[in-house]
């Protein structure tokens, strides 16, 4: 099986603090991979290295076959990224955001027009196309941001807490979009604080203090650790360090 992401001994230190401590894992093509961990466990640092924004102290990683250090520009061409905090320009309209990102991703005008049209139709957003993004409800914004992150048909898409604060129905619609993208072959790398969503992933990893403390399918993890839910496992693994990190 081909790996969309390969990580070998990836490490990042800040001064004397080791934020990411020699993590090693693979993510398969078309897989929905949940990247879990408590605040401060090192998730964000790891993601920054995988999308080529931060150089590792040691170790290596490839994303979509490109080395995250030597070919970081190439990595960025093959990935999509969205987060809860930033994804779209609020003061631009829906259409302007699509055009802007299409341009940044290097799509032709024709491709931007065609894919933009298909995107608006799929989201039932045609009537809102010329509204400012700021006027959209949060759930729509997040669905739009996800679609825009997929505009250039990236091999891998990184989603950083995409459903925070979103209503429960839209949250589930968002996960249906994730499955649809995965079914088309896109690899989805997702973080979340909703542990029921972790159950929707093909595999999850749980980071504790910069290391991967557990990794596997939700079913396998629950069986191996003798717990009923991933929430229970998460609390058990993360609790010992919670006191130190607050």
């Amino acid at each position, binding site marked *: 099986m081909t790996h969309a992401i390969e990580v070998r001994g990836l490490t990042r230190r800040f001064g004397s603090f080791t934020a990411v401590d020699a993590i090693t894992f693979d993510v398969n093509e078309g897989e929905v991979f949940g990247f879990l961990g*408590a*605040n*401060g466990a090192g998730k964000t640092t790891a993601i920054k290295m995988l999308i080529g924004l931060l150089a590792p102290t040691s170790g290596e990683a490839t994303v979509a076959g490109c080395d995250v250090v030597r070919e970081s520009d190439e990595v960025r061409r093959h990935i999509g990224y969205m987060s809860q905090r930033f994804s779209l320009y609020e003061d631009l309209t829906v259409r302007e955001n699509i055009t802007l990102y299409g341009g940044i991703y290097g799509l032709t005008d024709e491709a931007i027009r065609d894919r933009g049209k298909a995107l608006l139709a799929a989201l039932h957003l045609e009537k809102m196309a010329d509204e400012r993004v700021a006027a959209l409800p949060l759930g729509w914004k997040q669905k739009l941001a996800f679609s825009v992150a997929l505009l250039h048909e990236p091999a891998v898409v990184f989603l950083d807490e995409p459903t*925070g604060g979103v209503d429960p129905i839209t949250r589930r619609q968002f*996960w249906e979009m994730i499955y649809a993208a995965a079914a088309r072959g896109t690899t989805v790398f997702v973080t979340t604080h909703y542990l029921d969503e972790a159950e929707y992933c093909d595999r999850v990893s749980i980071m504790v203090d910069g290391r991967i403390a557990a990794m596997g399918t939700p079913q396998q993890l629950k069986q191996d650790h003798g717990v009923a839910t991933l929430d229970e496992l*998460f609390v058990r693994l*993360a609790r010992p360090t919670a006191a130190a990190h*607050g």
Partner: protein
Amino acid sequence: MSDAAPLVVEGLTRRFGATVALEDVSFEVRPAELFGLVGPDGGGKTTLFRILTTLLLPDAGSARVLGLDVVGDMWAIRARVGYMPGRFSLYPDLSVEENLRFFASVFGTSIEEGYSIIAPIYRQIEPFRGRRAGALSGGMKQKLALSCALVHRPDILLLDEPTTGVDAVSRREFWELLAELKASGLTIVVSTPYMDEADRCDRVALVQLGRILAIDVPSAIGARFPAPLFAVRGGDRQALIRALREYPHALSVFPFGDELHYSDARRTASPDGIAADVRGYLATKGIEGTVEAIAPGIEDTFMALMGAPPEAAA
């Protein structure tokens, strides 16, 4: 009883341009109650807190905090309310101790005078009292913000999404702190987008798009679910979802962790009969499934009460 209620909200309405942030919202909070406002972002929770803390005027309706009017008695309310806004509200360049000292002095008190009330929380971050607030982890920031909201010994605590973006472990610890504060007699109003946190409250209001969908004790909210509900497992999740959605009697089908929650439109059939029917139907689709009647939870009820999907409601 109503006179003693520390918080009374009646017909509160607030618009921003064409957007109705709050629409005719009414509820009462009892003394020493832990009252939850549960719902997604954009529901009006922050607007409500801003009105209750006298930072924003309502367009219509009224609210009384500790018997004081939010419009007429602005200054008296501010002195007696502890407020933790949703966004990180501390000075990132000041140390932990400097932040706390500043908030204490604004309210004409000192860390020493307020120490006994904040001690259970502040002691956990006191070892880091010289650290810049901006350099704290999420869970520690949250504990500092709570200490700052408590240091002047308020009579009511208003917390706007204190656990948003915080991991499951820190969230759990935060709710344990709130339970301790409540036990000391403090009235607490707290908002959250996490449905699983509703069970930690004495009573909750489910809030969506500026309206209250329901107010009740958490254990009674599920009774408002309008149909028989079942947990279904078996086979491939996507195939199972598709099959159930095609079933003529399906009312709703939603993933819940590692199972699906299925509600059935038939009102006359017994739950056992429906479960057997659904199992039989799945078998015709080549899926060997388990179907088990369950009691609806808060998230089930919230989705049912949301009624129209967000597309239509927006």
